[in-house]
């Protein structure tokens, strides 16, 4: 039951290489042209060191915690590199709990490059991936779930995913798991007291079966959110398919709101496929515009069609466009296939069917919503769920916990002795403990003593 050994964990594997007593820096915003960029520095002595390259050295050196200092970063000769605002954190504060600075500078690549090389010349070290998080973890700023959430926050691709990661940081997942852990500890205490005291010293024992069944359901619900989390994090592949000239490329362009594929009225213009990233109701989507499906003697086109078929095989969702003016082949709708009637402005599509006009944009909003509904439809939890599991590790631990409890329930129903049932409960608790923190035997005893009248 002792599960403080969670240190053999993914977070700790790379850290063996980390040194913790120097100053590290890194660009905290993406390496891209933008209005603003943030460069982060952490380590004892960083204020004094950077003051030597700052237009207002005294102000920077003496700045208190959580203050902003405006000024210019300049090179050794005193030439101004950029106008910046430095956010100052003193030791014990800020993300890493070390003395740290965050420079907001202009987001041109040239400026960023120049600042980073200045920092390097000062003898600071470019941080390795996750190193700020590691320092935060090392200084006790974060527990494992929080540390993982930080990593996810950094790599999250979409707005929704970012919001979820932020929620986790504030500890809502931690709270939920703590509550599950509490419930499990109550069940364990009820069992352990039977094992710690002789049968004639205790009241008649009835296994808290209802509580166990309820707990399994709660665990199942939480671990199911992983599917949702995965969708918002990794996204889905959607393939636009349909006969030639059904308007796939028009829809593709409309969705991307940019002229990317060649749209022309000649059949088979799009001979290969084109892909692009977009976001539909918060879900990151990779959209493929494909060659039209039809018999062709053109070998290049035939190859294109072959690739289309392969893409369709791998897609999470296929949007099959039907030309309402021609109709022709209409595939069966299924989980993975969404049939959409295009050119609703030219011909009336069948009643009750999803219809759009890629030309006028009519019905596209409904299509987008339908796509999002389809992608999330297999889940027993709704995408509006506030708490969503995104990390594979968390998912596996929750799953392992749920499975162990399932086995415990079977043992209870088969009337197997409690000492074995207790092993399964212990395993479930161990897995939960690995998520947010240990459960020690004394915690269990504490629960026993506070809830049961025991002792001769």
């Amino acid at each position, binding site marked *: 039951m002792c599960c403080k*050994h969670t240190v053999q964990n993914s977070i700790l594997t790379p*850290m063996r290489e980390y040194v*913790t007593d120097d100053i590290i820096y890194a660009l905290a915003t993406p390496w891209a042209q933008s209005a603003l960029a943030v460069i982060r520095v952490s380590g004892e002595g960083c204020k004094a060191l950077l003051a030597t390259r700052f237009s207002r050295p005294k102000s920077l050196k003496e700045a208190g915690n959580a203050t902003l200092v405006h000024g210019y970063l300049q090179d050794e000769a005193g030439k101004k590199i950029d106008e910046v605002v430095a956010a100052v954190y003193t030791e014990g504060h800020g993300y890493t709990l070390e003395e740290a600075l965050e420079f907001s500078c202009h987001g041109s690549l040239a400026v960023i490059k120049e600042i980073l090389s200045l920092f390097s010349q000062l003898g600071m070290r470019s941080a390795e991936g996750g190193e700020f998080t590691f320092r935060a973890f090392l200084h006790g700023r974060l527990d494992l779930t929080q540390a993982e959430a930080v990593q996810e926050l950094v790599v999250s691709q979409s707005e929704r995913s970012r919001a979820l990661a932020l929620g986790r940081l504030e500890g809502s997942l931690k709270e939920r798991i703590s509550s599950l852990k509490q419930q499990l500890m109550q069940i364990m205490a009820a069992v352990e007291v039977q094992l710690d005291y*002789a049968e004639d010293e205790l009241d008649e024992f009835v296994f808290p079966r209802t509580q166990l069944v309820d707990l399994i359901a709660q665990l199942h619900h939480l671990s199911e959110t992983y599917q949702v989390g995965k969708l918002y994090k990794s996204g889905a592949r959607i393939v636009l398919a349909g006969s030639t000239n059904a308007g796939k490329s028009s829809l593709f362009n409309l969705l991307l709101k940019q002229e990317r594929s060649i749209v022309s009225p000649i059949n088979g213009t799009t001979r290969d496929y084109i892909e692009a990233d977009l976001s539909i109701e918060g879900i990151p989507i990779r959209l493929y515009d494909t060659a039209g499906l039809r018999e062709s003697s053109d070998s290049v086109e035939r190859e294109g069609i072959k690739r289309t078929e392969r893409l369709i095989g791998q897609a999470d969702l296929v949007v099959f466009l039907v030309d309402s003016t021609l109709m022709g082949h209409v595939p069966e709708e299924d989980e993975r296939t969404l049939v959409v009637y295009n050119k609703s402005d030219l011909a009336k599509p069948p009643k009750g069917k999803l219809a759009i006009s890629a030309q006028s944009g009519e019905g596209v909003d409904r299509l987008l919503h339908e796509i999002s509904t389809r992608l999330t439809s297999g889940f027993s939890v709704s995408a509006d769920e506030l708490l969503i599991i995104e990390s594979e590790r968390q998912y596996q631990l929750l799953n392992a916990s749920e499975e162990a409890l399932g086995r415990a329930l079977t043992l209870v129903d088969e009337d197997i*002795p*409690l000492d074995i049932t207790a*092993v399964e409960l212990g395993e479930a608790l*161990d897995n939960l403990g690995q998520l947010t923190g240990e459960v020690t035997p004394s915690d*269990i005893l504490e629960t026993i003593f506070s809830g049961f009248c025991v002792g001769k």
Partner: protein
Amino acid sequence: MDYDAIVVGGGHAGIEASLALSRIGFKTLLITQNLDAIGRLSCNPAIGGLSKGNIVREVDALGGEMAHLIDHSMIQYRILNRRRGPAVQAPRAQADKFTYARLAKETLESEHNLSLFMDTVVDFLLDPTGKRLTGVITERQHTISANVVVLTTGTFMEGKIFIGEYDAPNGRLDEPSAIGLGTNLRKKGFPVGRLKTGTPARVRKSSLDFDKMEVQDGEELMMPFSFDYDSINRPQVPCYITWTNEKTHAIIRDNIHRSPLYGGKIVGTGPRYCPSIEDKVVRFPDRNRHQIFVEPEGIGTEEMYLNGISSSLPEDVQWDFVHSIEGLEHAQIMRPAYAVEYDFINPQALYPSLESKLVENLFIAGQTNGTSGYEEAACQGLMAGINAAQKLKGEPPLVLSRNEAYTGVLIDDLVTMGTKEPYRMFTSRAEYRLNLRHDSCDQRLTEKGFRVGLQSEESLSRLRQKLEKMETVKDLLRQRKLADKSAIQALKMPEVTMASLQESIPELSGFEEPIKYQVELDVKYEGYINRQERQINRFEKLESLHISQDFDYDALDGLSTEGKEKLKLVRPISVGQASRISGVRNSDIALLIVHLDRGGHRER
């Protein structure tokens, strides 16, 4: 030097420590305040119970004495929690307290290397550095030198008993406490604290109405605690069960202000798992009755022990509430219930060998370390004795792991976490209790006892024979077919038992019951034991990362302030132990692993 070793105290820890030292071959002196009080069962007249019965058998497997003493003094034998599974069931026996104590003294007296002396130790002799112990000073001003000392003071160090408004400097009722030693230890910088425990009243058998009570008989067949012989046969007497009632509770509630516990006279912390009746009434107001076991204190005495209603209320209140209980209406109280408060030394100041970190050559065991219970005391006394002997021989200490003995769990808990209340063993304190079954203690420990010079060649060969027989039974089961599968596979099913197999495999009847029982459990629990084995492998990885005793935690940057403080206090011997210290964070452990991995302080 006058002696190789001195053992202070003749209770359950002192008995094991002095026997271990003298049997291993060292000239040993046991000093006790009262030669007639050796091996007394101060509280309930029983040995064993859940996890405690396992400890008795661990002590036996290592070469200790407790199992022999109870085997030859028991007056009732029971196996507890049969229905809850073999991993948690354990033997418990009522003892004839006179026979038990007499046998204990006889056993000590029969050791030629062991001397006994009646006096009270009041201080230690230290060498000029002040860091090494060289002997003891007694109340009657004897100065006795020795290379090692084992301290087992029980409840006697500055002991004080309470009965309502009455208090007295006693360790047991009317037995003077050892005054001076606790104060001198405080002066020398030992972390001394106060704990409290209690005992119920003893009543006269002929004044009780057993017709109003439930009878509790022992098992038909007595089984020995010791692995040295297969059977014992002694006459058994019954225990009885009765209950408190609303009237009892009302009397207690009305007089609660007269309890020294609630009046603030007692400062020591009492055990939550074994509360006094006034605690139970206050903490569980919804319960309308509490169970009482009425247990004989021995043959040839009328005293009966009222298990479940220990108290420190005044005697007139005890008189009233005892008489409100069914069957006890006319009970003659022969000894009153009382609470006792005593000095203990924070066991975090000990190494896992039970040697003091403050003063070399001083070993401390038993209630002095904050535990409660005869069995808990005995196993510590034995380990302190063994390790004091190892020290005298210049050999490394014997430290039992959490996955091989409850004794290992107990000592690791004490030295790692300390204790705030009298520490009692529970099966739930052990992470790997499936491996700590009482019937297999010999397989885990006999050889260790042999290697330190305490177990005999004979015990070792007995164990080998047992293992061979178990293998023979397993082979037999592997060879025989039952329907479509081998008998050993069939045995894994819940409905198949060794007894049912015996019908189709008559050869099985040629093997002793304990052999067949163990094979049955091994087979039935194999899957779970294997799963636990994987956890144990992970556990052992951290245990095997040794930290040297002079490790400089101050030089390790990044440790949390609290973690650093706790690590310096406990000085864990491994990263595994460090990870169990409360206040040491995961990040501290991570840092330690990183640091140890880089070389520097790794020891294998």
